């Protein structure tokens, strides 16, 4: 019996010939990512009392959750991180204005390569499975252990394989596919498991869209989530690393790998319209037609899930020549400085501003509910982000619906949850 991709990577990283689910292994870490919570990691690291981090080349710190600092307390956190980075000689630090959302910055700078073990003090670290890495979120103290030892124990996960075939109808995207799958499997449907996405529909997706699948797999509890390593991905990496990464059988599951479960999705048949995750759970998913007409006060396009160039493009396409509804506001947060720059070059930013959207600086924005776009009691938001828990984006008495960037943009124009087709049928002003 062969191995799944998660098993292969953990076997290699722990120096074993093969591993099986449920075994405990100690794996060498290739890359350790933190954001503002690097300050918590730093404190735990100092408590442990080791003088130097294990490898300053393999630690990446990217400020994104509260940029620029919104309070004196955050400013002090940022300052403490900068001083630690300098003192330890940490090589890869992306300060305010130099990066963006950590997962996007890692990707676009070619930090993550197939076969790597990546840990991050952020639950959406699963995003990097789109690059063929075993990538998972850990807590701050655990990261202090990685900074100390350069390795971490893992229970080898069993793997759930999801094979997707069929074509997306117009205005259905990777976001709709993964929301649909989360709705089917539930918020704990992939708890402790690795997920492998494959099939012609997945292979036809852009790298950015594959990141959406791996990113949101966290919302069904996945420990890691992979999309295929193929020519498209290797081209993406070559453009960002300046070198060719030869394909390898190490980057794919064995054909006779043992799966806990194989789920097949026919996108043409099952995904006939965009999907929306309703308050207050990511697995509370309904087809858009069931929530059409819900009034919205705020729209958000952004986050590590959907703040990339193709997301801004979709929003701009809907908003071109139109206006955000008078009773609604639309916030757009490009996921990184590079994306912002590219979106300016392509005219998307101008289109969005002319439509009445507010462009916020690259970062996590209101997704985590700490600054820029907090909701008042009684307000409803439709958002391309990843969580709609009670109080996630502000008041505990606010509501968040999760959807694709195109649906967010259409809803911002309509002032209520709407299908992009509803908007595009209307004449441009």
């Amino acid at each position, binding site marked *: 019996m062969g191995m799944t991709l998660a098993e292969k990577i953990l076997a290699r990283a722990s120096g074993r010939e093969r591993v099986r689910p449920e075994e405990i292994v100690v794996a060498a870490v290739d890359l350790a990512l933190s954001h503002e919570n690097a300050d918590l990691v730093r404190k735990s690291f100092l408590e442990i009392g080791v003088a130097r981090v294990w490898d300053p080349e393999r630690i990446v710190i990217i400020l994104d959750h509260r940029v620029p600092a919104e309070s004196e307390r955050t400013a002090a956190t940022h300052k403490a991180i900068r001083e630690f980075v300098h003192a330890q000689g940490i090589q890869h630090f992306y300060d305010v204005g130099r990066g963006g959302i950590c997962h996007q910055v890692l990707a676009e700078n070619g930090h993550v390569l197939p076969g790597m073990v990546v840990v991050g003090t*952020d*639950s959406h670290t699963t995003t990097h499975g789109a690059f063929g890495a075993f990538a998972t979120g850990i*807590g701050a103290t655990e990261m202090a252990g990685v900074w100390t030892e350069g390795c971490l124990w893992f229970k080898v996960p069993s793997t759930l394989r999801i094979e997707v075939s069929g074509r997306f109808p117009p205005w259905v995207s990777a976001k709709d596919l993964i929301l649909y799958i989360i709705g089917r499997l539930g918020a*704990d449907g992939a708890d*402790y498991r690795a997920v492998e996405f494959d099939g012609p529909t997945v292979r036809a997706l852009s790298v950015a869209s594959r990141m959406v699948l791996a990113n949101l797999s966290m919302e069904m509890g996945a*420990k890691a989530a992979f999309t295929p390593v193929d020519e498209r991905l290797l081209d993406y990496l070559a453009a960002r690393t300046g070198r060719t990464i030869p394909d390898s059988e190490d980057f794919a599951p064995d054909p006779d790998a043992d799966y806990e479960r194989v789920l097949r999705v026919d996108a043409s048949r099952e995904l006939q319209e965009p999907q929306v995750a309703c308050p207050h759970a990511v697995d509370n998913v309904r087809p858009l037609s069931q929530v059409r007409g819900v009034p919205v006060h705020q729209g958000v396009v952004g986050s590590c899930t959907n703040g990339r160039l193709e997301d801004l493009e979709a929003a701009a396409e809907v908003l071109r020549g139109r206006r955000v509804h008078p009773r609604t506001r639309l916030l757009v947060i490009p996921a990184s400085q590079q994306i912002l720059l590219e979106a300016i070059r392509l005219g998307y930013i101008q289109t969005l501003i002319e439509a009445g959207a507010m462009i916020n600086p690259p970062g996590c924005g209101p997704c*985590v509910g*700490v600054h820029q776009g907090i909701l008042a009691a009684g307000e409803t938001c439709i958002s391309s982000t990843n969580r709609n828990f009670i*109080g*996630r984006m502000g008041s505990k008495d606010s509501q968040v619906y999760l959807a694709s960037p195109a649906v967010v943009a259409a809803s911002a124009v309509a002032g209520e949850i709407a299908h992009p087709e509803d908007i595009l049928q209307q004449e441009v002003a």
Partner: protein
Amino acid sequence: MSAVKLRGRVAAKLGDNIDTDLIYPGRFLNITDREKTGEHLFELAFPEIRSRIRPGDFLVAGKNFGCGSSREQATAAVKYAGVGAVIAAGFARIFFRNSINLGLPAVVSPEAAARVQENEEIELDLIAGTVTRLATGEVLAAAPLDPRAAELLAAGGLIPYLKKKYAP
């Protein structure tokens, strides 16, 4: 935490999918003193639980407790609000690991999650994997801690464990 058996009262019983935003809202993430996080436990949704917790009390929850963000403050808030252990039908994996790393016992027991009541006195045996209802003597099954987690808990968490290993 060094004892393998813990006795305590169930301070509160919670449902399924209690996420880390409910446990510890994002707005308090810039508090980085672990001891102070307990002041904001369950702040948005059920702050009244805080005043019910006496040191060493337990929380009992349904499946997927601690899902969502990797924020370690969620675990720290539970611990520093005085909770001695969390018993749940299941934990989201990052929360489970954070608990062990901060020295907070996290016990998986669907049986206990279904049967144990608020205010009840129970005893946990972390190694044997049992939850005993002291009023009736009924013994409920729990998952025994795996040796790696038991070793970390016995040391009081990851920091004391590594401190001993690298800087004795």
